[in-house]
């Protein structure tokens, strides 16, 4: 097998007495979607934050694209090609949809210390921005103020901004949350094709989406990974059924 693009080694993070993340080791290989599931409060977002660089682990390492990035901040990891979306949309709300994606394209381009030419007339950035909007289906909303978008559209915009970064791996925290049936189905189809551009570590509650998409699934409960395997393996796993799936009647 090829080397993983992303790997965590023994990540541990406590909040006081609460071990939100306990010795978590997982990896993400090129071309795959690795889903991370687990009940609310299991520590999924805490794990994502440590991988993205928003939160320092108490111990453990994060390896990305062949090097140890544990001590890099968010900016450094993003520049190396980690494309992240948030569980709760994190966008520039006063800007238009287009401005938000242009910001992404600008981040990818890197030349931010330019003070004179109008950025919204930059052909190359605009092209990339429009292409990303097109792919998530937000072309018509380009001129809309982000604050005026519906919840689902904001989720789409999050994904579009991540696309402009042309990342080496995607890190997505519940991208389907609040999308509705139709929206989830569309996004599921889209992510299915996206994995060939860059692998996705996908935190998701929507079990239909998870089982449809994931090459591998890891189950996180109380900060610990209790099982990793294919959809069928996870469905058949007794620990998982008692700890998690049983409660939601998915199996």
């Amino acid at each position, binding site marked *: 097998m090829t080397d993983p693009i992303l790997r965590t080694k023994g990540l541990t993070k406590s909040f006081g007495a609460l071990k939100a993340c306990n010795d978590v080791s997982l990896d993400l290989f090129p071309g795959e979607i690795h889903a991370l599931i687990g009940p609310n409060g299991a520590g999924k977002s805490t794990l994502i934050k440590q991988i993205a660089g928003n939160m320092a682990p108490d111990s453990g390492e994060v390896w990305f694209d062949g090097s140890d990035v544990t001590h890099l901040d968010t900016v450094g990891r993003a520049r190396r090609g980690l494309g992240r979306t948030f569980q709760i949309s994190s966008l520039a709300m006063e*800007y238009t949809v287009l401005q938000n994606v242009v*910001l992404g394209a600008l981040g990818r381009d890197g030349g*931010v*210390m330019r*003070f*004179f030419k109008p*950025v919204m007339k930059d052909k190359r950035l605009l092209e990339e921005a429009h292409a990303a909007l097109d792919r998530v289906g937000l072309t018509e909303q380009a001129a809309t103020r982000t604050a005026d978008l519906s919840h689902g559209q904001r989720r789409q915009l999050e994904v579009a*901004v991540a696309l402009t*970064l042309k990342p080496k791996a995607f890190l997505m925290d519940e991208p389907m949350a609040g999308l509705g049936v139709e929206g989830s189905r569309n996004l599921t189809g889209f992510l299915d094709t996206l994995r060939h551009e860059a692998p996705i570590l996908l935190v998701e509650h929507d079990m239909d989406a998870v089982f449809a998409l994931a090459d591998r699934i890891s189950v996180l409960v109380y900060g610990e990974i209790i099982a990793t395997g294919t959809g069928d393996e996870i469905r058949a796993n007794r620990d998982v059924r008692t700890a998690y799936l049983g409660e939601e009647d998915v199996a």
Partner: protein
Amino acid sequence: MTREALLNTAIMALLAAVPIIAHFTGNPFTITLATKVAILAMAAVGLNIVLGLGGLVSFGHAVFFGIGGYSMGILAHHAQLFIPIMEAPFLIDGTKSMPIIWLVAVITSALVALVIGALAIRTSGVYFIMITLAFGQMFYYFAISWPAYGGEDGLPIYVRNSFPGLNTLDPIQFFAITYVALGAALFLSARLARSRFGLALGATRQNAERVETVGVDAYRLRLVAFVISGAITGFAGALFADLNRFVAPTMFSWQMSGEFIVFIILGGIGRLFGPVVGAGLFILLEHFLGGVSDYWLIYVGAILLAVVLFARGGLIGALAGREVAHD
């Protein structure tokens, strides 16, 4: 042309028309008032880059205003006394030339902004306000206790500094200098707001996490903005000193920093011409109400309160409507 662009053009025309009329009707005092508006507006245009675009409430921009003022004061003081500023290791003479004074003012305030910014921008919110305020007080007390350049009494400069080809002693010609300087500052900050840098800086105001997630360092953006902002305010400080032919520690005072913020709030936070309208209104109120009552600032306070409560976009917002996202 958008409504706001139209309004801005009208404001710029008015600011030119008043002193020109005053010039022909022989009313130099009005020209001086307009000059003061142009200079203070320019100082606040500088502040508006960090405050309006970057969302950083600097309560210490008087530092740069004062640095600009003292750059002028010190250079001109040495020139008028024919005493070099230093002789070893190399000779530095004073000067009465405005362009050189401006250059020194801009470079010095940019350097000081780099140092203050590097420390202050690590904090945010109220801490940022307090730390910039603290720097302001430091400079203020330093100026008071430094006897070489007048200390508490300030430093008079007897003759206004010179500009090639102009008679700076003629009020309307000096006004023209400040008007062009203000125009240049406005032009630069308008371009900056629409540039790559401006897009990213504006995003840090709304959501710094978003900016860092796309791989852009928010700290660096803010620091560079702070330096540019300090340099513009410093330039204005040098002009202000030349208007008064006098520099005093009050240029460093927190009241001065507060006035710049008031201009911006009155005119409209983050609006290009907000500082111009705000400074204009403030000077008008000071002039007309200051004669009526010593407590004229109470009226300013009341107007400020009304603007904050009822007209969030300031006067520009009230006249031109909500800001349109730039194309």
